């Protein structure tokens, strides 16, 4: 029987790693991720999880060790946040291009300086082009469900790519919610042991990740591109299988609500979608035609699905908790790109905010709705607003600097 209990998303992810029968975990502590590896260490110490847990000396090494284990054909997992993810950057490319199906939980946190341990998406977005599949959880339940799905998607022979499951720091990682934790039997029925190739078989020695000519190099990149494109269908397919077996819609590329008749659609990533969903429901109760598109797979990016969802919409508010300096809100830029050529030209408003744990609540969302309604009536004066920014005032430290 599946039991429900109150837990944080970090606990939920640790349960998912346990239930997935992960064989090697290599990790390094960082707030707000640490509870994941503490929970896993506890599972291993208590014999509830048969895994080799290696607490390495850095995040670079955490991912490197995970990649090595995965190259040997075993199921491997790691977890990190923020600075740790940035410290992994070289190995991020390595994992994707070496085509190892490792799964990592990234507990989204702001990037320093200045230091801030609270949530935003700058860490994940900065790894956008490393070749990883990136999934975003809205709830603690989804953090568990997506982690389980991630192993099956990553290891699918059509994919063979690493997956990062993003869960918002503190909003999910340190907040208790009811989470249904399936039994091992049920999970075993969904996720078979890894049937991975041991690339380091001593009977058949090969050299992997070696030097290649320019002609071969682009072949490897093309194979990687094709696999990432194929992953979109696999994410959809496995999301449906999961729903059939577990009775919950946790996966897929995108989650839509109220978009069919919507004049205004909010598009976003992660836990803020839950907040927006709540507001959308109350707005709709008041007769406002507003919808939400929660992007669950940021890579591969569901451009066609987004364009379809927005085809009858007059105005779109894209909420970004990260920024591409010198360009714009990264998700907003991609939504615009998805709409180009689709024949749909809604006003795309880029709402930027929720950095370093700053709240995105009913007040901010009401402002955004007002802005979208004005755009719907032809007011195109502002296409980007940073929420929560006060007028600049010079502040001095006591020593006058």
């Amino acid at each position: 029987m599946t039991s429900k209990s109150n837990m944080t998303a970090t606990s939920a992810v640790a349960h998912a790693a346990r239930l997935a029968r992960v064989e090697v975990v290599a990790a390094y502590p960082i707030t707000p991720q640490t509870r994941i590896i503490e929970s896993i260490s506890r599972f291993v110490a208590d014999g509830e999880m048969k895994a080799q847990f290696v607490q390495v000396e850095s995040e670079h090494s955490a991912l490197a060790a995970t990649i090595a284990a995965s190259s040997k054909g075993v199921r491997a997992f790691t977890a990190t946040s923020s600075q740790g993810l940035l410290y992994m950057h070289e190995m991020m490319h390595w994992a994707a291009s070496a085509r190892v199906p490792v799964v990592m939980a990234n507990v989204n946190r702001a990037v320093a300086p200045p230091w801030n341990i609270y949530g935003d998406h700058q860490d994940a977005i900065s790894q956008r082009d490393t070749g990883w599949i990136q999934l975003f959880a809205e709830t603690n339940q989804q953090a568990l469900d997506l982690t389980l799905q991630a192993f099956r998607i990553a290891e699918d022979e059509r994919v063979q790519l690493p997956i990062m499951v993003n869960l918002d720091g503190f909003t999910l990682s340190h907040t208790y919610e009811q989470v249904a934790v399936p039994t091992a039997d049920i999970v075993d029925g969904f996720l078979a042991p890894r049937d991975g190739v041991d690339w380091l078989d001593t009977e058949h020695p090969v050299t992997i990740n070696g030097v290649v000519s320019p002609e071969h190099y682009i072949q490897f990149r093309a194979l990687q591109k094709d696999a990432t494109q194929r992953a979109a269908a696999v994410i959809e397919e496995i999301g449906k299988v999961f729903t059939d077996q577990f009775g919950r819609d946790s996966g897929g590329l995108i989650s839509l609500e109220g978009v069919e008749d919507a004049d205004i659609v909010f598009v976003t990533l992660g836990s803020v979608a839950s907040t927006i969903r709540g507001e959308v429901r109350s707005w709709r109760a008041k007769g406002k035609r507003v919808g939400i598109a929660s992007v669950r797979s940021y890579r591969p990016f569901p451009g066609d699905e987004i364009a379809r969802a927005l085809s009858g919409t007059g105005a779109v508010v894209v909420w970004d908790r990260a920024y591409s300096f010198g360009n714009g809100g990264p998700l907003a830029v991609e939504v615009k790109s998805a709409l180009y050529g689709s024949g749909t030209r809604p006003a795309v408003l880029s709402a930027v905010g929720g950095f370093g744990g700053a709240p995105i609540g009913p007040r901010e969302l009401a402002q955004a709705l007002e802005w979208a309604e004005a755009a719907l009536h032809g007011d195109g004066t502002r296409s980007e607003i940073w929420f929560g920014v006060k007028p600049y005032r010079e502040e001095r430290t006591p020593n006058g600097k």
Partner: protein
Amino acid sequence: MGSEHAEFVMRGNSSCAGCGAILILRQVAEAIGPNQIMVIPACCMGAVAGRFPSASFNVPVLRTAFASAGSFLSGLDASIKARGEKTTLVGFAGDGATVDIGLAVLSGAIERGHDFVYVCYDNEGYMNTGFQRSGSTPPGARTSTTPGGVLEHYKTEARKDIAKIVAAHGIPYLATASPAHPDDLKRKVKRAAEIEGPAFLHVISPCPLGWGFPSSQTVQLARIAVESGLWKLYELDLGALRLTQSPKNRKPVREFFSVQSRFAHLTDDVYQRLQDAVDEEWKVIEEEGFSLRCETVRA
């Protein structure tokens, strides 16, 4: 076919003529035999490992990024333990990947007690990228980033003693070796593989191009390094430290330095100081026994 006679290094590989590292790799691979996995980070032997779809070494080779030999070995050790397998893991890395960029990573892997044999072939600089200085380049050497000029000297700083750094971890097995003494090297590699837990070998690796000597003289130079007393052969086996070679009638150190163009600028008085330093070291060894104590050294 016994592993002693198996060939692990393929013909036609792209190592330079007279490469010391490829000799070392061959001796290491032969000593361990076919049941091994080799992890090679960015370094000369990484480049030599082969250009797809060819491979130069007849063992499984996992190429890694520069600062990740120790971490890849750690992950492999964990996966082998998870599956209950038994394979010797060999890290084969240059001095840059070991004493500089990968030092913390190696330190972590040793501290955690993973089971592997890490071989640092020390060619005393970044030879694969064109002979830049490393933390293991000896003082006085000319490199492409310590070229010597009107205002600046050649490398002036003392080299890191990586073996002492590794010894400070309380590692189960540590040894130095030279490809000019293959029996000694192979015995040490076998012992390193046999002992459970981490083992480290520090091997002198003459580099004809980087050091500037004729490619026919590689083994000779590796031998003179030992016979002059400059490169000490020793092992630290489960806490027992011993010299495995005590050169009698040591050759003048000048024989080691003078054939290398990177030391071409050395003058007679410098040679005398280098000779005095080595003589003093061996005097202490003869009087007080060999130790790995650390002293403040000045270039």
